[in-house]
C-alpha cells in the first residue's frame, strides 16, 4: 500500500460524546473516517420516544446519525439482532450488574467492525473507549481482551485514552501522531466536556444510564422473568420491544398482562392485536392490555379485573371489557375491578 495514500478508519459510533470526540481527533490528523452503528434491539436510542406520548414534545433524533452529520461522515447502521442473541444468552465473560454482557458485546462489535473494515479496504478501527470509564468493558485489564478476542490486535485505536495504552499500528506507522491524541482515564467527564467545547460541539447526547436497556435493572428483571416463564433463554424482537412498554404483571407462570400506561403506549400495543390476545375497557375510559401466554378462562377474568383496576371505573361494582383473541374473535367480559390488595406485589415485574 502506498504510504502517502490517505488512511481510512472505521469508527464505532454510539451517538454519545466519546465516539464523537474520538472521530474528530483522528479527522484532525487527516484520516478519512466512516462510522458503523450496531443495532442490537436493546438500544435505548429512539424507542421510548417513539412509544411514549409524554416524551413526544422533545425533539426526536437518532444520536448516531446526528453525530455522523456533525462530523461529516457516512454512517452504516447494521442490524445484528439475530447474531447478538448468543452474546446475551452465553456471555463468555459473564454479565455486569444486570443482564449486560458489556465485555462480550464490545468484543463482538469490534469483531464485526473488523470484518467490515477488511471487506471495505479500511486500515484501522476507532472507538471512543476511555480506560477506567466502565466497570466491565473499559478497564485496563479488559481492553487487551477486546483486541485479542476480536482479532483486531493493534489496529484498534482509542484516541481519547491512547497515551495511557501501548502504541498501536496507526501510531507506529506514523498515520496518526500519538502526541496529538489524549490520555483521558476514569469516570470524570470534565476533559470530554472541555474538548467538546474546544471543537465547538454543542447539544451532544450524554445518556445517564448508557445506551443499552440491558444495563437497566427493571428491564433485566422483566427479561429474566421472560426466560423463567419459558423455561429457556429465548426471545424474538417483539418480545424485547414489549419489555420496554407498559406495566408487566404476572399473576402465574403461564401468562402475564401488559397494561399501557398512557395513550402513546395504548397506540403502540394496538399494533400487536393480531399477535396477542388483548383486553380493552368498554364501560369506562381505561388502558389497553395484551395477554402474553396461555391463560385459561378464570385467568382471563382475573387479568380483566387487574386491567379494570387501572381504569376510571376502578371504584365501580362491575365494569365491562372486550376480550379479543388474536384471531379476531371477541367476547364481552363483566368483572369487578381488582382491589389493590388483590394485585400482589410479587406479580409486578
Amino acid at each position, binding site marked *: 500500500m502506498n504510504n502517502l495514500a490517505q488512511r481510512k478508519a472505521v469508527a464505532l459510533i454510539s451517538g454519545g460524546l466519546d465516539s464523537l470526540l474520538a472521530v474528530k481527533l483522528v479527522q484532525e490528523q487527516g484520516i478519512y473516517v466512516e462510522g458503523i452503528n450496531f443495532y442490537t434491539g436493546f438500544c435505548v436510542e*429512539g424507542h421510548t420516544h417513539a412509544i411514549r406520548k409524554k416524551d413526544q414534545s422533545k425533539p*426526536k433524533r437518532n444520536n448516531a*446519525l446526528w453525530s455522523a*452529520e456533525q462530523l*461529516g461522515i457516512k454512517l452504516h447502521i447494521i*442490524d445484528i439482532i439475530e447474531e447478538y442473541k448468543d452474546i446475551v444468552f452465553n456471555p463468555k465473560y459473564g454479565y455486569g450488574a444486570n443482564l449486560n454482557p458489556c465485555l462480550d458485546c464490545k468484543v463482538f462489535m469490534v469483531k464485526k467492525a473488523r470484518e467490515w473494515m477488511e471487506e471495505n479496504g479500511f486500515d484501522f478501527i476507532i472507538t471512543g473507549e476511555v480506560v477506567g470509564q466502565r466497570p466491565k468493558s473499559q478497564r485496563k485489564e479488559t481492553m487487551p481482551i477486546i483486541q485479542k478476542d476480536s482479532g483486531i490486535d493493534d489496529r484498534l485505536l482509542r484516541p481519547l485514552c491512547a497515551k495511557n495504552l501501548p502504541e498501536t499500528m496507526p501510531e507506529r506507522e506514523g498515520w496518526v501522531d500519538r502526541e496529538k491524541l489524549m490520555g483521558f482515564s476514569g469516570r470524570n467527564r470534565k476533559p470530554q466536556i472541555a474538548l467538546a467545547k474546544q471543537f465547538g460541539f454543542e447539544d451532544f447526547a450524554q445518556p445517564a444510564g448508557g445506551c443499552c436497556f440491558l444495563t437497566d435493572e427493571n428491564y433485566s428483571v422483566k427479561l429474566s422473568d421472560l426466560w423463567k416463564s419459558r423455561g429457556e433463554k429465548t426471545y424474538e424482537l417483539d418480545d424485547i420491544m414489549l419489555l420496554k412498554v407498559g406495566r408487566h404483571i404476572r399473576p402465574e407462570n403461564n401468562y402475564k398482562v401488559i397494561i399501557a400506561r398512557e395513550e402513546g403506549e395504548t397506540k403502540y400495543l394496538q399494533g400487536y392485536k393480531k399477535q396477542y390476545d388483548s383486553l380493552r375497557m368498554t364501560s369506562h375510559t381505561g388502558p389497553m392490555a395484551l395477554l402474553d401466554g396461555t391463560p385459561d378462562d378464570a385467568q382471563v377474568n382475573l387479568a380483566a379485573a387487574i386491567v379494570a383496576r387501572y381504569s376510571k371505573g376502578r371504584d365501580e361494582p362491575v365494569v365491562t371489557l372486550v376480550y379479543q383473541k388474536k384471531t379476531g374473535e371477541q367476547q364481552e367480559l363483566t368483572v369487578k375491578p381488582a382491589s389493590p390488595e388483590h394485585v400482589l406485589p410479587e406479580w409486578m415485574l
Partner: protein
Amino acid sequence: MIELDCRRLLCPMPVIKVQDKVNELSQGQELLAVCTDPGVQNDIPAWCRINGHQVLSIENDEDEYRVLIKVGQND
C-alpha cells in the same frame, strides 16, 4: 418507483431497511418508504443527507409517514 413497507418498525429499523434497499438501487431511482414511527421524519432525512441521497417529500396520512427518496451516488 419502489415501495418499502416499514410499518410498525421503530427507528432505527426503518432507516436500516431504507439503507439496505437503497444500496441495491441505482442513482436516480426513487424509493417510497411507508412508515408508522414518527421518528422517521427526522431519521430518514438525516441518513439521506449524510449518505448523499435526497428526500423528495414526506407525506403524513393518518398514522402513516410516506417518505419519498431519490437515490444519489452509491459507492
